[in-house]
């Protein structure tokens, strides 16, 4: 939706025009663009009745770029995500010096949706900032796991020697 190659200025104007042509309906009333890949392999499932290996089911697309986004200023909609990922992602994206602004919102509590707004300085796109944030969170998880296991071992030794 947001072409990366264009300069910011052009795209801002383009987006303005595009915005009008795009559906003005709230996201909940826009047509769902989900691919129904999950429904196709119904017949296949029956054969592996006794085989508990989980088939790598194609997940429906849960992230989308909201209308009116430009390369350096974009809003993303996440389906089936909430404060858990929203706030953590917001934190780690805000830690990126190339990011001018980042915030998340849950537009309505009855809808399982979470929006993230990212505005970046020149030199990095909002999508790149989002990807970096998600990578950083995964690395962070590894460090916490590592430290937690070390602390657990330390404590067990301390208790054993006491």
């Amino acid at each position, binding site marked *: 939706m947001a072409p990366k190659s264009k300069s910011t200025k052009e795209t801002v104007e383009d987006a303005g025009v595009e915005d009008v042509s795009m559906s003005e309906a709230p996201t909940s009333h826009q047509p769902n663009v989900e691919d129904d890949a999950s429904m196709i392999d119904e017949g296949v499932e029956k054969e592996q009745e006794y085989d508990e290996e989980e088939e790598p089911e194609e997940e429906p697309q849960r992230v989308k770029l909201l209308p009116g986004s430009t390369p350096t200023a974009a809003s993303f909609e996440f389906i089936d995500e909430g404060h858990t990922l929203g706030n953590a992602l917001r934190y780690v994206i805000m830690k990126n*010096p190339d990011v001018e602004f980042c915030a998340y919102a849950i537009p309505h509590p009855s809808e399982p949706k979470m929006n993230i707004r990212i505005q970046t300085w020149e030199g990095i796109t909002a999508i790149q900032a989002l990807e970096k944030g998600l990578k950083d969170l995964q690395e962070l998880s590894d460090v916490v796991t590592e430290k937690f296991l070390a*602390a657990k071992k330390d404590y067990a030794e301390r208790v054993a020697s006491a």
Partner: protein
Amino acid sequence: MKPPSAAELERRKIVSINAETVTDVTSTDYPGHYPGEDHVWDLETFRSGLRIEFHKNEPLEASFSVIGVDASIANAFRRIMIADVPTLAIETVFINNNTSVIQDEVLAHRLGLIPFKGGREGLHTFLKWKKKPAEGTDDNNLFDYNTVMLSLNVECTHNEDAAEGETDPNKLYRHASVYARDIVYEPIGRQGQYFSGDDIIAPVNPDILIAKLRPGQCIDLTMHMHKGVGSDHAKFSPVATASYRLLPTIDILKPILGPDAEKFARCFPRGVIALDKVTRQEAAQEGSGYEGHEGELKAVVADPMRDTVSRECLRHAEFEDKVKLGRRRDHFIYLIESSGQWDSDAIFLESIAHFKEKARKIEQQVINMVR
């Protein structure tokens, strides 16, 4: 611009707690917040700043401090522990007969809330999610790897051995009370390999009262257990409690001496404030506030972790301007009480793994979106 001093960095970490207000609540360690300072996300900086210390580690209760993370991360782990770590619980109850006074639906609800334990390997790796049957089909998707069968069959009868004049129903009748231990696990398929001996599927607490009966009444039902998550129903939550609090800080700014010191100590839970004697050196030091008080008692902070931050000390005029209360914004004291299916520390580890998996999946989604 010179980098901030260690004292300044320490000061920034403190949330101030005043008599009626709380200030400096939000974290400020973002790039661009302080001129000339960087605060950029860096894994090695995070690694060197992160500290984890255990206070207690038992299967049903673990407490530890995670120091050096932001509230958003700490809170993500807490939320995942409560709502996203899967457990096995009774999901369907087939009632063949229930002549007790407790209604079918109430009984089924009570059964659902009973926490169960079993072989860890079987629970975490062998058992899988039960898939919802596809719409319009009567294929129920029940297999040994996604369903655990239980039964409960009790009938209340008179106890002929009861003493004359006995009035206690539990002695007068057999099965006057139905307990969780009366539930029988029925292995199917390969479940015997995983759930036998000590690893059998059984209630964590066998003494949970399910219903009360009188002679002639009976309960006869079978149950299906499935894996689920706490966001669907609280019965699937692996924890009774998963919470954190910030480490309290108590700064004594000016000496609190003599009877005041004893009163000060009583403003806090036991063990938080200790009473020491003013030493000769302290008394000799000019401007310390201890001059001429050698040998008197003074209040010192012994163990701020035990404080409840009641703010009682801020209500007394004699301590005004002498004490500053606060909490450390990046020191999270977790308390996790497992409901029995997982070890408490394993729940936290699982929450980290879950968090990582969440981020990984969304990253893939973002890549798909761009494509």
